[in-house]
Structure formats: structure tokens, C-alpha cells
């Protein structure tokens, strides 16, 4: 399995505060990965490190086996759409593509034209006069025309309306299917991710909480409902991610090897959203020391 992006104990500090710390993860080729976390969790920092805008303060990041900081060889393999899809607003799409063709060794202008023609965005209008959704599409076309092997998108849909968001994600899925590009997409809009992503990275408070294939992760986690004072946890529970208690019963989101046999506990499947929210909860706020089950 080819690893496109790999980080090892990666850390980045702004002044004394760590924006990202001890981040170790691997992104296999061909995946569409969601990078999820609340604002300030370090998502942008991780993407900026991956595209070489930032230099790590600790650990290492490798893209296609190379260190990306200020490395042109990596830049030409990576497409990047920054947060709020910044573009020169007085440029037309055509001028932006001219820029792309002049600044990149490999640039498929025809592909960019085709993409905009498909969604009906005029190429001769300054992009500052387009809608937010259209501008995001132009930014995506600009990034995809590099024919990148890795596409990094930083909150590409955060500031556009739901319809444009869906169109954008459809367009993204379209190009991914065409080109087989690996995608890492950060977002805090969870509903969108379920349809688009097959790989998940959860960041919280500068640290990686969860990494893995979405279907595997969903299969590994269960929501368990059982009595409040039900005694010991079922043996199958490897880790309690989150626990909620009412007067009579406890609801756990747990990583399990298999559904529990214990008839006192009922097991339910979890959705991607449940899973992400469970990992984004504050892990230290567990009410019972008893729930701390060694993995």
C-alpha cells in the first residue's frame, strides 16, 4: 500500500502554544480522507505543513517520501485549495489559468476549461464578481489542472451555501473518480463527509484522536446501552470513548472486538457523525474511574 502523506511525531508551535503536537498518521494512496476537528484543532496547520507552507517545529512530515517545506518537486505533485479559497479577485478565471500555466511545469489548461464549462462558470469575468460557490469551483479547477497526485482542501465548503456545497462536493467526487487523486479534505460540516470520504482523521486540541478507514472504524465501534450500575463492563469492550449516564442507564460509545454477549447490554451500530462527536468530546471528563478500561 502506497503512503502518500506520512507524519511522525509532527509538531508546530506558534509562540509557546502548540497548534499541532505529536501528530503521527499515514494517508494511503487513493483515499478521500476527511480531516475533522473543531476550529483551532490544528487542521489548517497540518495541511499547511503538508503543502510546505510551514516548517515543522518537531517531528517530520513527508509527502511522497519528501519533505515538503519550500520544495518545488513536492509542490508540483500537490494541489492545494486554502481556506476561503483565496484568488486574485481582479483576475478572470482565464487569467488565473494563465498564471497556473506559467507557474507550473505541468498544467492542464484544457482540463480547467472543461471543468468550468461543465458547471457553466464564465471564464472572462473577474472572479471577485462570482458567487462564493463559483469561486470555490474556480479554485478547485485551478488546483486540479496541476494534475496533482495529492489534493489538499482546507475547509473548501465552509463559507458557501448548502446547494453550492453539494455541487462542489459532487464536482470533487467527479474529478477524484476521473483521476484517482488522493484527497485530504478538512471540514467541520460532518454531514457532507459521510457521503464523500472513506478515510477519517480526527484532530482535537492539537492532537490526533482517531485515524483509519471509515468502514473499519464504523465496524469497530458500537453504541452500548446498559444498566447504570451494571457492574463490570462486558469483556468485549476494548475502550470506552464516551459515556453518558441517566438515572437508570448508561450509554457508551465503545471500541469493541465484537458485540457483547452480556444480555444486560444492547449494542447498536454507530453513524460517522456519532463516532466523530464521541472522539471530539473531552476525553478527560469521564465520570467514573471504573469506566477506565485498559485496552
Amino acid at each position, binding site marked *: 500500500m502506497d503512503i502518500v502523506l506520512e507524519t511522525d511525531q509532527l509538531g508546530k508551535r506558534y509562540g509557546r502554544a502548540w497548534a499541532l503536537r505529536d501528530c503521527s498518521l499515514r494517508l494511503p494512496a487513493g483515499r478521500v480522507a476527511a480531516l475533522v476537528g473543531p476550529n483551532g484543532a490544528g487542521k489548517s496547520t497540518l495541511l*499547511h505543513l503538508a*503543502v*510546505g*507552507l*510551514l*516548517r515543522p517545529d518537531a517531528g517530520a512530515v513527508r509527502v511522497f517520501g519528501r519533505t515538503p517545506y*519550500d520544495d*518545488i518537486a513536492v*509542490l*508540483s505533485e*500537490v494541489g*492545494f485549495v*486554502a*481556506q*476561503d479559497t*483565496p*484568488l*486574485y*479577485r481582479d*483576475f478572470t478565471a482565464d*487569467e488565473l489559468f*494563465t*498564471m*497556473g500555466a*506559467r*507557474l*507550473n*511545469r*505541468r498544467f492542464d489548461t484544457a482540463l480547467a476549461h472543461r471543468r468550468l464549462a461543465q458547471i457553466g462558470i464564465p471564464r472572462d469575468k473577474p472572479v471577485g464578481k462570482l458567487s462564493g460557490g463559483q469561486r470555490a469551483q474556480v*479554485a478547485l479547477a*485551478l488546483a486540479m489542472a*496541476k494534475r496533482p497526485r495529492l489534493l489538499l482542501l482546507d475547509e473548501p465548503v465552509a463559507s458557501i451555501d448548502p446547494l453550492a456545497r453539494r455541487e462542489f462536493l459532487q464536482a470533487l467526487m467527479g474529478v477524484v473518480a476521473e483521476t484517482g487523486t488522493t484527497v485530504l479534505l478538512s471540514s467541520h460540516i460532518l454531514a457532507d463527509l459521510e457521503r464523500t470520504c472513506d478515510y477519517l482523521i480526527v484532530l482535537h486540541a492539537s492532537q490526533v484522536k482517531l485515524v483509519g478507514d471509515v468502514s473499519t472504524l464504523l465496524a469497530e465501534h458500537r453504541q452500548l446501552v446498559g444498566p447504570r450500575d451494571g457492574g463490570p463492563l462486558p469483556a468485549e469492550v476494548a475502550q470506552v470513548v464516551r459515556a453518558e449516564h441517566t438515572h437508570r442507564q448508561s450509554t457508551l460509545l465503545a471500541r469493541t472486538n465484537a458485540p457483547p454477549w452480556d444480555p444486560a447490554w444492547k449494542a447498536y451500530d454507530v453513524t460517522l457523525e456519532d463516532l466523530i462527536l464521541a472522539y471530539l468530546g473531552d476525553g478527560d471528563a469521564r465520570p467514573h474511574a471504573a469506566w477506565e478500561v485498559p485496552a
Partner: protein
Amino acid sequence: MIWLTWRQHRKQALFTAIGLALLAVFMVPTGLAMRHTFADLGLDDCVRALGTASMIPADADTCGKASIQFNSQYAVMTMIGVLFLVLPLLVGLFWGAPLVAREIEQGTHRMVWTQGVSRGRWALVKFGIAGAVALVASVIYGLGVSWWLTPMSQAGQHGRFNIFFFDMQGTAPTGYTIFAVALGILAGTIWPKVLPAMSATLVGFLGLRIALTTLARPHYLPARVLTFPIKDATEQTNPAAGDWILSYGIRDASGKMITANAQIACAPDATGPGAACGADLGITSGAYNWQLYQPGTRFWLFQGIETGIFLAIAALLLYLAVRRIRRVA
């Protein structure tokens, strides 16, 4: 990269060109008119006759009346000319400061630095083009103002070496302009917003310009001292010498300054109205006129030193800017 820089900044380039053209529209006719008057008053010949020596025979200055007439006619031009001092600063504010600051303020640096060009090269091309435009504009401007000011300088009252007049002609404006642009660029990497970067450029530019003009420029080379007698004066200072007089006054026989900012020359056997030559001012026998000055022949040398200092500072600022750009994200 060159295409991109041109496309991004063509409006500013156009405004710069329009500015220079407007300046030319003002300066060419007024410059020609001044030259015309200058020749009509016969100043050409008499200034040439004065030469460039610091002292001339007392009866040699035949230009006096004509030059006073010329200066009073064109006094307003010197006022207008002083306004030109701010032009290098304007270039720094509108070319230099937004160059990096606007990219970072609008986030477009993340788009352009992730194309296939390293940001080191991005910076070099952008700074190079901005610098080249500033260079061409300021050389045209500096030489143009030199031409325009020549009659005024020669007419004696505002020598080209004097503060303000030195600063707006020759190569010095080129040094100031490149410095202002470099300062604006660096300010933009430190305060990545256009307005704070412009403010910092304004403060930094004025601060260094004033400091260097008042503290450093008089000492680029050791100043010379000239003394000449008060009584029986057969010589006087030459208004056409173009010397930069740093200070002058009258000292007594022991060398103590009696009266600063005064100069007295009494011709032999002078019998003016009032007391004898300077007696009522407390001038005793043995007192003499004293002046500390930079000779006018050093004008281009000082221009070169001034320009060199500002270009060197600009180079340092640009180096720091490139270093900072490699750290921004």
C-alpha cells in the same frame, strides 16, 4: 512569474507613469520659462564669470540685482519644489507596502506559494520588478528635477547643496525611492496588513531620512573652515560656488564666537551711515568672519554617498524581507 507580477501591478505602474507625465507637464514649461528669464536677465554670462571658487574679489559679483529679481519672480517654484520631497515616500507607500502585505492580508500567498514556484523565486521576481520600476521612475524624476532646479540653484539663493534642494535632485531621490520601496516590502512581511505596513513605512522613512540628513550628512567628509577679514575686505563669498554652509559667524581674535549667523564685510575706507564697521555690534579689532562649509565641488560625491547609504540599507531590508517570507505561512 514576470507575467503574473505585471498583471497584478499594471495599475500601479500605470498610475506611476501618469504621475511622471503630470510632473513633466508641470516641469517642462516652467523649467523652460525659468531658463528663458534666466537668460533674459543676463544671468548666464555673469554666473559663468563668477566661477566656482568659494571666495571672489569684492567687486566681482555683478549678478546680485538680476539674481534677486529672478528669485523673487520664481520664489513660488521653490515652495512647489519642496513638495516633490514626498514623492519617494509615496512610491514606498503605494508600491512597496502593499506588495507582500496585500497578498497575506487576502490570503492569496497560500494560493500563489503552492503553485510550482518557490517563494524565494517569487520574492526575487516581485521585488526585482517593483525595484526596477521604482529605479526607472526615480532616475527620470531625479534628473528631471536637476534640470528644472538648475536656474534656481545658479541664481544663488538656493544652492543645490542645501538641505531640501540636495534631496530632490541628482541620484539621491533614487536612493530614497528604492529605500522606501524596500522598507514598505519589509513592513508588509512584519505587519501583513496594508494599512499598518503603510504606517510603519511612513514612520520609518521619515525617521531615517531626518536622522541621516541632520546627523550624518554634514559629516560624510570633514567640513572645511574658511576665514576672511571684516575690515578692508577685498574678497567676498561667491554665491555661485554652491557651497553648503553648515554654520557661520564672527569670531574675535581669541577665536570665540561673538555673533553667530552673521557676516560683515567692509570695503577699504568704507564710510557707511552709523558707526564704523561693526563697532556697534561689539566687534573689536582682530575679529574675523568664520564659516564651516562643504565645498560645492563635493556635490556629486555627497550625492553618491547619500545614494549609496540608502541603497545599502534597502539591500539589507530586502534581504530581511526574503528571510521573513520563508517563515510566513
